[in-house]
């Protein structure tokens, strides 16, 4: 009788337990811990300025009698750009010729033919649009992170294009009003013709480059203020481990310690997962599934 009842109820009990156990298994989606290159980003507004920029001033007083170039004309070094006739009879109304100190393009004209000109008055601005540099203002707290020769990316605001740039130097003087020091950069690649002087964009540098674990913030749970992650073992068992957090980067958080390579961290779950409970992972890559099954097969063979 006893044996019979065991035979009947035994499998029934096992079946019930299995069915019960199966019903309680939560489905989870995991992230597999893998080290990645992590860096901080320092970003500054930048303005493109010409390397060559010559402001032509009048060297004598008189009347502007001729302007040889119009706005946008190319000027070669030593070419006569303007003629000023002395208004003072002492100089016998002699004409005075203004010569270009550098080659460039007429970028601004400040006067007109026939105007009275005084000594030192702005006449013209010559710049070379093919020779540009970038100027940024670096916040004091970032000065230690930036070094001469560092490479960065310049992004134009209007067209959202990216160019490689290099830090040429940082001024040792700090403006106490703005709390910044001026820095100069140059384009590394061939000069981009579209980046004209005056364009505003932003420059970003990667600093603090290192290898580390970066995860979506969903993996975190808290025990009081202690951040934790829930990890899934080879036996699909869940446990919590304490972790130390680093900085947040675009919705992702760096985990400084507590996580090892290849650990499965629960990112999403179909319900509230308890410590020690068995879960079913939903998003294992095929390779790993294969590996797991072969492992299990091996165990069975043994």
């Amino acid at each position, binding site marked *: 009788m006893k044996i019979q009842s065991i035979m009947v109820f035994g499998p029934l009990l096992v079946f019930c337990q299995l069915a019960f156990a199966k019903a*309680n298994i939560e489905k989870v989606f995991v992230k597999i811990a893998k080290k990645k290159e992590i860096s901080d*980003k*320092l*970003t*500054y*507004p*930048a*303005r493109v300025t010409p390397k060559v920029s010559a402001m032509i001033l009048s060297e004598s007083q008189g009347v502007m009698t001729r302007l040889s170039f119009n706005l946008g004309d190319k000027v070669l070094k030593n070419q006569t750009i303007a003629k000023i006739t002395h208004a003072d009879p002492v100089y016998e109304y002699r004409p005075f010729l203004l010569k270009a100190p550098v080659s460039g393009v007429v970028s601004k004209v400040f006067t007109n033919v026939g105007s009275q000109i005084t000594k030192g008055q702005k006449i013209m601005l010559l710049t070379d649009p093919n020779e540009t540099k970038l*100027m*940024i*203002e670096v*916040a*004091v707290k970032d000065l230690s992170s930036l070094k001469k020769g560092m490479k960065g990316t310049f992004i134009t*605001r*209007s067209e959202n294009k990216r160019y490689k740039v290099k830090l040429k130097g940082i001024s040792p003087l700090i403006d*106490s*009003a*703005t*709390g*910044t020091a*001026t820095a100069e950069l140059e384009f590394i690649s061939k000069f981009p013709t579209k980046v004209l002087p005056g*364009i*505003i964009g*932003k420059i*970003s540098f990667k600093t603090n480059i290192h290898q580390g674990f970066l995860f979506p913030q*969903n993996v975190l*749970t*808290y*025990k*009081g*203020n*202690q951040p934790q992650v829930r990890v899934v073992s080879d036996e699909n068992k869940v446990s919590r481990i304490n972790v130390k957090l680093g900085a*947040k980067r*675009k919705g992702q958080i760096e985990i400084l310690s507590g996580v090892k390579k290849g650990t499965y961290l629960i990112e*999403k*779950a*179909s*319900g*509230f*997962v*308890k*410590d020690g409970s068995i879960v079913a992972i939903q998003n294992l890559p095929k390779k790993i599934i294969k590996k797991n099954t072969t492992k299990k097969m091996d165990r069975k063979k043994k």
Partner: protein
Amino acid sequence: MKKLYSSPFRVYLIILVLAVIGIVAGTKLQVSLYPNSSKPTIQVSINYGHLNKDEFVQNYGNKVGPRLQAISSDSLIIKEITTIYRKTSAGFKTEFDWGTDPIKAKREVQNIMNAVSASWPREIKDSINVHYWSKSSGFIAISFFSEKRDIDNLYKTLEPALVPKLASVQDAENPSLWNPGSKEVSIVLNPEAVTSLRIFPRHIEQALRQGVQGYLGGTVVVDNAKLSVQMPRYLNSLESLQELLVQTPTGRIIHLSEIAEISIGEAIDSNNIFKTNGSKSLMLFAKPKSGGNVKRMAEQILQIVKEAMPNLPKDIQYKVLVDPSEFIRSSINNVIHEVFLAASLAVFVLFLFVGSIKNTITAALEIPLSMVLAFILMNIFDMNLNLISLGGLALAAGMNVDASVVIMENIFRNLNDVKGPLNFKTRLALVLRSVKEVRLPIIASTISTLVVFAPIAFTSNLTNAILGDLAKAVVYSHFFSMFIALILVPTIRLHIMNSSKDGDIAPISPINGTLLKLEALYEKGLRFFIKSKTFKICLYFVMVAFIAGVALYTVPKLKREIIGTPDTDWMILSVSTQGNTLIKQMEEIASKEEARLLEKFSEEIRYTFTQIQAPNRTTIMARLKNKNDMSRVWKKMEEEFQNSPIIFYWVGPWNPAELPLPNPPHMRLVVQGGATEDRVLLAKDIADTIRESEAFPRTWTNPGSSKQENIIMEPHFKRWPLLSKIGVQFTPFDLIDLTRVATDGKKLGHINLNSQSIPVKLSFPKGIIASKEDLESFPIAVQDRFIPLKSLSTIKIEQAKSNIYKVNNRELIYINGKQKKGQEDKIKASLAKVKAVVKDYRKNDLHKLKLKSAPIFYFEDTQKSLKDALKQLSLALVLAALLIFITLLLQFGDLIHSLIIMIAAPLGILGGLLSLYIFDSTICLNSILGIILLNGIAVNNSIILVDFITKLHSEGITPLEAAILASKKRLRPILITSLTTILGMLPIALGLGDGGKILQPLGLSVAGGLWFSMFFTLFLVPTFEVFYLTLQDRFKAQDILLDDSLKFRDTAKDINNLNLRKQDISDKFMLERAVLAKKLETKMLEDNQQ
């Protein structure tokens, strides 16, 4: 009385006038779902102004709670004051007790706020807003569409026709026509141009403000006419906006178009989004004000729409998506049908027993008349027609005919005794005598039926608020039924007798044969029951076991609730998330959930209606194809939408009622005291532990305990003097204004375009600030340099401070849990599990949190108000029984007889509880009220029996014969009165219609209890009476013997004489009884044959 009965037309006229007044009063009664009782909650909102949360709490906030608490007086009882201190504002919610006058409550709160804020800073004082708060989910939603027009055109056509009229709907709060394609003028600034020109949003705002204002330039008298000089506003088109002149800080004047793209387009972000079946639609949406009647509001709005439609182009059509008035109307109509059905069934039962249509109508007239007359009192006492008061009328319908039946029966009985021809005088005398004979019993029985309601007056306000209307409806109509039975019924009877030529004879019931058989069967059964000792003992044993079974097994298993809600074809799926900051994020989630709902329940759902109320809150309503699916879909939806750590769902039926019925969670753990942050941490940790234990499928904290972060921007104020030295004109506040425009955009007011007022929004190109780095590197022009924002202010991400939540001045957080629909029987086990989990947590996990302060946590009984209400009602039940007992004692003057009569009461209770269990109903206010009422009705049967048995016994019949004879003779009246009530309750007990579900427990307890009590009363009461009367007789015989023994004391020797005498007396006594019984039986047989 003589005069009254003899002038029928005068009586008819008086009754007719009263009936007309009653009908008019009935039509004037307001219709709503629940009784008119109010439980006002007054909300006070305050903005902190320039203060931060802690400063406000310490200086001002802490004084508000105690001052509000001081309002509490005899007439204004405060139940609870809930305070919440958020980041920038505080809310004080004062919840008053049931039956408080809302206007008085609001006035008192306003007065307190005026007094307490007298010395507050003006900006904080001005922000105080005192208003009613309501959690009613009733609203109306009407969608408009047209095949020929786009939404914008449709809106333009509808807006002038509807919106001005909507403002006149007094019960509605801000009714509006929502346009999904609403337009806005968008000014998107060019970041480079703005930076280079050193322009801040302030400069554009100033220019715009000047442009949208018109100016007056005084008046000029021209040709004796006074003309005003006006400069109209010049911003009246997009072009004029493009040409708006803006002055830069360097003094240059430029056109707005030089630094910004200006266009008109769809408003990007909206506070509230409405969708039906997944797509946005032009929607008329209105919610009731607190205290407003939702049904009246919906009807008025529908009326406005219906009136407007003929004047609108024919291509415009509308569809009423959600209409609470329809729901309330159909619920009420269903109950009205039930009332009619109850009345018809009672009349049918009456006909079956009375056997004459004429007499049936005479008695049945009482049902509608007493109901209509009750309307007069209902109107005077400011009641309304609702599910509860109508339930009372339905309940009274069956009971109301009893008095007329008794009067008529007595008239016929006396009529049969009259021999010889009847003239008017004898007829009048006969009627007068008949009425006089039963007048007192009728008044007494009416009073004893109504006296059971007296203890309800002493129950809690909640019970009173909900059940008061039912009790009043029964009392009013039953009270009038007594007058009608005593005045109108005899008058009609006399009138009929006078007009009938061949006199009037008692009619024969159409089921007379069956009744006779039933009587014979009952007689046999009763005789067997009384005589057979074994059977009797067995039955007593079964009864005791049965009572124990019901008390120990059935009662604990019965579900408990305050009151049921009516079935509806609307299900609500409420979705809440954490951490969303944009309404767009919620829109995406809502779309997914709505699609899932429509896909999984495509067979059950007709259409959906979605409201996206906030970035973290949305409500999806699904209209079911079949109302009967509600319970099934509810359970299925709870299965489908399981809470996860990211999304929380709430599933339930839609209830647009105004009455704030308590709906407490099944579990509540209070975390109290300690520092705010510690309390939040602890509450979150315990809640997580409970969730993981899966004790309750839904566990949440109130207020929320999730971690939230803010970006804190602190300008370097000390640097500003230096900056101004080098010519910087902007201030730190310009910087924060700039980030607002660069991130969310800023509304700058409205401009009138084509006679339409359109909002203007200032923003930067989308995505210009997408991260903290973008914010840090935002360019600010200083001299000829562009410096990053982070060099002018510190920018950091910080964890936001938690909200402070106070209830009655105790700082706390609630952790609530709720079991799934249909699994309420698991609540006890779940609660035990949670208690074990929390105990374990206290022992093993609490110390791991390392809290600096020590908040305490304890369980609170959430079902307290329900338990209290049920307890009080149970007390009322006992009191009612006591009152009945006292009435009986006064009437019979015999303790044992009264006790035997009272047997019917526990039998009724047993039957009531059992039928509630069998039909899977609940112990609620309604069902207990039904049981209380049952006490009053059930004892009437025993009164009839005991009264007749004692009467026959006093006439000299043996107890056994008296009991059997009386029971047999009284079977018909008992059946009539019980069956009219039972069948009258049947439609309600069956829960026909949606409204019926609320009253079902009442119907079940009354019908089931009365049936059960009637059946057992018919057997038990005669048995006990036989037992008692036999005992009495034996005592009497012994008394006679004792007298004789005293006489024979002197001749004590003659013992034989004594024995002989004893035998003699006993024989003589029994013989006398037997002869009398035989005589009476023959007389009754004759009566029957006649």
